[in-house]
């Protein structure tokens, strides 16, 4: 905790700006760009996978293309989740994998804070079903036309709080639980 | 062979055995009633439903397969009942008795084959 100066992010800043443009050509970006020519798509350089950003209005159509296009065949949905960027809204992240071509792609789409709704990827992969249910209850995202919009991990009636949002308190629930379990006695002991 | 009176007097023991067994159960139950604790608690008397509240009454309909097997059983058990007296006496009567029973069993065997063919022995 004391030796903060040892942080090893020395060469991070130089790499990011310059290399993005060059390195994208080494990745599958040209291929993806060709396949998704009908969609507004912006690339980003990820650590191991290519990241593409697609506006949310186009996302399901783009995913359909990515899955069904012969050149890429992203037939496997690795993971579907979201990232809360506080004021910048919530990013929904799709990690795709193509078993026949052995290539990976990360697809991101941004949802504004005030309207967290997006089409459902279950139309594309069945695998998205539970992942979307989990993302929905954790981030308060509404997946339109989801076939089974119940909660997955959270209690059935917990539809107003979204634990993985940054605005959700970390410790309050724990304190509440502690009181139920008799932890209040212990804390009294600590205060002596 | 025992005389007929003794044949039946032996079955008195069966009746006594039943009574002994009955008293065995009831004494144990009474002993338990006296020894075991008992506390009235509503939660305890719910049925075990893997930790959830019972969904609805359990005594609903039973799959019709079970009835089918029950019918088949009755048919063949009756056959067994016919075989019982025959099995220990056919040697004394001779080949005629054997062939009679042979025909009977073959007919029932055909019945079994028919039931098999019709899929009565198939669970679905």
């Amino acid at each position: 905790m004391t030796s903060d100066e040892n942080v090893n992010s020395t060469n991070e800043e130089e790499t990011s700006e310059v290399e993005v443009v060059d390195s994208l050509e080494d990745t599958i970006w040209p291929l993806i760009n060709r396949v998704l020519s009908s969609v507004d798509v912006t690339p980003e350089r990820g650590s191991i996978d290519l990241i593409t950003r697609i506006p949310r209005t186009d996302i399901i159509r783009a995913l359909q293309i990515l899955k069904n296009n012969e050149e890429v065949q992203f037939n496997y949905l690795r993971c579907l989740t979201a990232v809360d960027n506080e004021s910048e809204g919530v990013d929904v992240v799709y990690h795709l994998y193509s078993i026949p071509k052995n290539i990976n792609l990360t697809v991101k789409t941004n949802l504004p804070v005030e309207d967290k709704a997006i089409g459902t990827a279950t139309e594309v992969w069945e695998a998205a079903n539970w992942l979307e249910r989990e993302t929905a209850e954790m981030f308060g995202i509404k997946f339109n036309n989801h076939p089974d919009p119940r909660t997955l991990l959270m209690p059935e009636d917990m539809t107003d709080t979204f634990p993985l949002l940054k605005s959700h308190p970390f410790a309050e629930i724990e304190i509440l639980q502690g009181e139920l379990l008799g932890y209040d006695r212990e804390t009294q002991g600590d205060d002596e | 062979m025992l005389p007929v009176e003794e044949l039946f007097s032996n079955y008195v023991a069966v009746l006594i055995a039943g009574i002994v067994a009955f008293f065995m159960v009831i004494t144990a139950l009474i002993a338990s009633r006296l020894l075991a604790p008992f506390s009235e608690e509503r939660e305890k008397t719910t049925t075990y439903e893997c930790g959830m509240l019972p969904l609805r009454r359990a005594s609903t309909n039973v799959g019709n397969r079970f009835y089918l097997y029950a019918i088949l059983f009755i048919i063949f058990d009756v056959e067994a009942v016919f075989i019982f007296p025959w099995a220990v006496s056919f040697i004394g009567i001779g080949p005629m008795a054997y062939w009679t029973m042979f025909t009977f069993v073959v007919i029932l065997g055909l019945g079994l084959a028919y039931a098999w063919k019709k899929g009565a022995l198939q669970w679905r």
Partner: protein
Amino acid sequence: MRGIVKSLATTMSTFIRGPVTRGYPSKHRELPERDRAFPLLLWDKDIDEPFCTGCHACERACPVECMTVLMKDNPSHESQDGNSKRRKIVDEFWIDYGRCMRCNICVEVCNFEAIAMNNTWSGHETSVYDRSDLVMDLPQLMAQSKSDEIQEWVAD
């Protein structure tokens, strides 16, 4: 049927091989040196005081926040005519074993090698009837080290 016979032969072979389990509560397995049960505080035998100075390093590093440490001035410090080099020393120390996840981080961050994971059987047999009994205070945490029941294992 032949496969079933093979299964029977397999179980018979283990029947002959004999048991591999132990009669647990009466017979204990030998624990490896690195075994880690719950953290304990160590006692400095040379000076007769705990190694711990109450520096809060472990308390801050604990992922589950199971520790509470209070620090005080050492009454037996050299300046106070004592024989100790420690200016500060631990006043109170609580560890909630009910919360501890035995991750060893407190041992790693300690600069004084004052805390160690219990590698004896007594560390594994800590059942209590009341949750609050799992909160250990300073004398309880010191007891085993004082009576030489644990050998400390320090990672290189």
